[in-house]
């Protein structure tokens, strides 16, 4: 992969597994996820109603009293996330929502010298 279009978006180990982070690069919103210590990046906005996908994994208000503690989720096995608003499931490699066939952008990610870089 050429390094020309890769931009640093985080430090390695900045995100715990199951967490997301939102970054804007040149007006493009990206959501970066740690999926079982591998990193994936997609467009930050769910195409359904523009929810911020980087909020996946955020603790719910009184989450410890709910069936699940987090808003949305990261699925290690299927390398996917579910949106924090309505739980639309997005493949992190394909950027696809299987039910509707809609796609959001998915970006190449690499880790180099402790930096996490995304290819725009």
């Amino acid at each position, binding site marked *: 992969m050429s390094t020309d279009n890769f931009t640093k978006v985080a430090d390695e180990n900045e995100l715990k597994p199951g967490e997301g982070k939102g*970054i804007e690069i040149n007006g493009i*919103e990206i959501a970066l996820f740690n999926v079982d210590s591998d990193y994936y990046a997609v467009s930050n906005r769910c195409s359904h109603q523009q929810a911020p996908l980087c909020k996946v994994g955020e603790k719910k*208000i*009184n989450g410890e009293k709910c069936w699940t503690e987090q808003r949305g989720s990261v699925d290690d096995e299927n390398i996917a996330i579910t949106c924090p*608003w*309505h739980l639309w499931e997005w493949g992190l490699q394909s950027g696809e929502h299987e039910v509707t066939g809609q796609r959001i952008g998915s970006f190449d990610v690499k880790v180099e010298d402790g930096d996490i870089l995304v290819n725009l």
Partner: protein
Amino acid sequence: MAGDSMAPEDEVPPQAYEDRIIDLDFHLTPPEDEILKYVDDDRLYQKLTTEFGIAPVKGKWDAAYAIKDGNEGLYTQGRAETAEDVREAAEMFAIDEPIVNPGINNMPSQHHPLLKTAVAKACNDYLLDQVVPEDFYCLMMLPQWDPEDAVEEIERVGDEDGIVGVYGWFGPFTMFGDEKYDLVFEALTDNNLPLILHGSLSFWPQQTPVGDNMITWTEVLGFDWPIHAMLTTVNMIMTGVFDKFPDLDVVMQEGGHWWLPFVRYRMNEFYEMHPEDVQITPRKFEMEERYLNRRPSEYLRDNIYVCTQPMALPDRTNETESLLDLSMAEDTFLYSSDWPHQTLDPATWAYTNRAFDENLKNSILHENAEELLGI
């Protein structure tokens, strides 16, 4: 995205924070032990503290089978148990005035009238004691299963500062067109309070072949609720509720909204074809009136409001514009988030969809609610 650009963490466009947004369906879930503190009869308190809890559910069902991750559909965003929780959630979605309701949407189907009236009163006292002082507007819970109890409760707390409406339910029980509710409507209009009806379905068994034959959440919340909201609306109109109580305002919460054009034209057509049975509805018979005072669709504009969650917009802007116009949205729509349920509906569409011009946006986000609730 229209207007100022969003930061990645933003839940809604920044412009939403510049507008007043009133949310007509914000669910508070106080812990049961907190509500029970306000039950003042020892005998009722004892019965409400069995293992059943205050509102036992006969058959639990929500979106959980239909959404990912084993999530409980009622709490995909969390639970607001205190005023502070309400404030935190409202701030995330630029909601200036969450109109807080105490939920417990299976109250009508509880079995013992004294127990459920006690719960309703305790909820109201909890709101007045714990939520209203934190500068939130609230809806009082209506013990609608006993009209006299309902009137007594309206008289008791309806005039309190911070109570801006009365929270009841539409569902598979006695329709609100029944004349037994007239004393409730009189109390509502005397106190200048709107009746705000939330859905109370999806507790199994419904004990009807149709109700128990539905097995997907899309059927239930998508359509069983709106069908009951429509029927409740038409029943109230056709039995003359708004002829006897022309100042009564009624809101349908979580019963859909795009059925307004369907009801508007079909109700007019059917009524004008065969209007002669209106005079033998008990209310109109007592009023000695043969027909409705207005065309049926006029009551939709003048007396009925609908909450908008989820907005469920068409893909094309021109279709959205048509639907909004036919739905008389400028007069009938009230923004609602439905926080924390799975049908959460932040007001993003008001800022990103060209079908919502400035006038319409303001009507839906706050002006209609301001007029309805007097806030």
